[in-house]
């Protein structure tokens, strides 16, 4: 039940490396925020700054109305779930969950009540007497979450909590984390490099790149209107296709020299056209925006990905089709772009053109 406010938050390490270049954000009560980005983008550093495990070089961090820049992690009323679970190996599951409450000098009955409540929620009641070494990865993850829940903190912090689990368990736990956060209505900040996790969990997500937030918004906002080529390429899988387009007096042309059948934002000589694989469809030659030659087909079951090469372009264009691909490898085929789903970027600044 808390808000978190970041005001121009910055982090510079002793060796001069600037990890976070300044982030402003207001996290609302009960909101689920996901920080996503490639490794080294500063997302974990940011989370650790909120937790109090890294010092804040500049700016202000508020939890509710309290400035917590200098407050120790234990006094910020946050609970963190670590990638490696970080369970105390010499304590039983019960003690692992109870430890934070014992430190806070809660009564034995209250501790028992809280631990049992958390164990019920996470369905780990049968494991309470075990040691962490006797648990599977998924069970350890649950215990780690239990340790966070029992404290009833103002903010949950998750540092890539699912990346050590296998694919199936990851999907299952992802859904559980979502349900749990919905039920508890606790503000949560979640770091991941996995864009699917980011999209599915977040109320709002922050895409970070090089210590700066590229864009902050709801998953669908970021998907529909990515502010930069970085966000466009990061959100959505497979990634958005980018086609460099030349604009002169005669009109706009593809790298192959073919003319575009639609207009592009004016005032630029070069424009980067972005189109998602799902917004391209195979069509007849007379309706074609572009003609491609199949290089690889990847059947995924429900749909198929067709990688098509085009003259003058370095990278293959990815087309997503429903069901099985109707074309064969090495064949040429015509595609049409969904005119409503075109994105334009400035190739020099990489930012979105209106």
């Amino acid at each position, binding site marked *: 039940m808390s808000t978190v406010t970041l005001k121009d938050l910055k982090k510079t390490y002793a060796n001069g490396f600037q990890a976070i270049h300044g982030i402003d954000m207001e996290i609302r009560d009960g909101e689920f925020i996901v920080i996503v980005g490639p490794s080294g983008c500063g997302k974990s550093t940011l989370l650790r700054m909120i*937790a109090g495990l890294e010092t804040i070089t500049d700016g202000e961090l508020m939890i509710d109305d309290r400035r917590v820049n200098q407050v120790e992690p*234990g006094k910020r009323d946050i*609970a963190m779930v670590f990638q490696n679970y*970080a369970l105390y190996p010499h304590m039983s599951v019960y003690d692992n969950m109870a430890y*934070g409450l014992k430190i806070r000098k809660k009564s034995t009955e209250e501790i028992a009540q809280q631990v049992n409540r958390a164990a019920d929620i996470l369905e780990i009641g049968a494991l309470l007497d075990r040691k962490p070494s006797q648990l599977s990865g998924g069970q350890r993850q649950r215990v780690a979450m239990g340790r966070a829940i029992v404290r009833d903190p103002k903010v949950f912090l998750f540092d890539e909590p699912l990346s050590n689990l296998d694919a199936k368990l990851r999907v299952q736990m992802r859904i559980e984390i979502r349900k749990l956060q919905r039920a508890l209505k606790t503000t949560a900040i979640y770091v991941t490099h996995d864009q699917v996790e980011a999209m599915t969990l977040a109320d709002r997500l922050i895409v970070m790149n090089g210590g700066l937030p590229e864009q902050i918004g709801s998953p669908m906002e970021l998907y529909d209107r990515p502010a930069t080529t970085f966000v466009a390429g990061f959100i959505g899988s497979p990634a958005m296709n980018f086609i460099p387009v030349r604009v002169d007096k005669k009109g706009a042309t593809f790298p192959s020299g073919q003319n575009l059948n639609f207009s592009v934002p004016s005032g630029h000589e070069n424009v980067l056209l972005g189109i998602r694989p799902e917004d391209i469809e195979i069509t007849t030659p007379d309706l074609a925006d572009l003609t491609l030659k199949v290089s690889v087909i990847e059947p995924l079951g429900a749909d198929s990905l067709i990688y098509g090469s085009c003259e003058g372009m370095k990278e293959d264009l990815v087309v997503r089709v429903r069901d099985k691909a109707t074309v064969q490898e090495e064949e040429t085929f015509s595609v049409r772009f969904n005119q409503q789903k075109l994105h334009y970027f400035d190739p020099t600044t990489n930012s979105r053109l209106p």
Partner: protein
Amino acid sequence: MRNSRRLGPLAVHALLISYTIIALFPILLIIFNSFKSRKAIFKSPLSLPDANTFDLVGFEKVLGSSSFDVYFLNSISVTVMSLAFVLVLGAMAAWALAEYDFPGSDFVALFLAIGIMIPIRLGSVSLLKIIVSLGLINTLTALVLVYTAQGLPLAIFILREFIAQIPDDLKEAARCDGVTEYRIFWSIILPLIRPALATVAVFTMIPVWNDLWFPLILAPGEDTATVTLGIQQFIGQYVTDWNAVLASLTLAIVPILILYLVFSRQLIRGLTSGAVK
């Protein structure tokens, strides 16, 4: 192919077994002969005691006439106290050096490394002076202080390596739980380095127990003599009471063996398993 593969382990085992025999032989010899009469010791030192040669005269002399109970108590208190100080102070210093970056931490680490390389006995004269000026001569405190100083450098060096291997996440999880740094040390770090503590304990206590040098120069009095010093009274310039010497040596093995067994139980258990993936 198969033979040569067999030969490797065989050779290793042969080597280890022969080393074990060489190492244990003198100890077994002491124990056998402590149960024999004086004549039998000299007549056939390598034979086991039998009905004719069995004699407990050495033990009777040691336990009956001399003040060996005092010596034993002295040795045990000095060893246990030194051990406790080395383990507690060593672990705390190791935690500080491994976890915190403070001005001069590199210097402290280097200073301790020098302590590993230079034997403490080189400073015997100045140690004697210090102990005299502190008025601690002929006290067990003097021995405990010197042995603690002797044991600390290597203890810190080894424990620091172990503490550095404890995943950061564990300490950070504890910090998020609101655990104070002292409490993290006592209830997270110490339990996790128990095997290392046992190792350090074993090789700290043996030199302390066996030492003759410092008891001789710092606490030679009758009330403060340790077992190793006490045994010397049976070794004369002209006559050596071998029964008593061997019996006291045999008895001296017992406490240290018990301590070793206590610690070696800890060595077996790998406690960090299951901490993190």
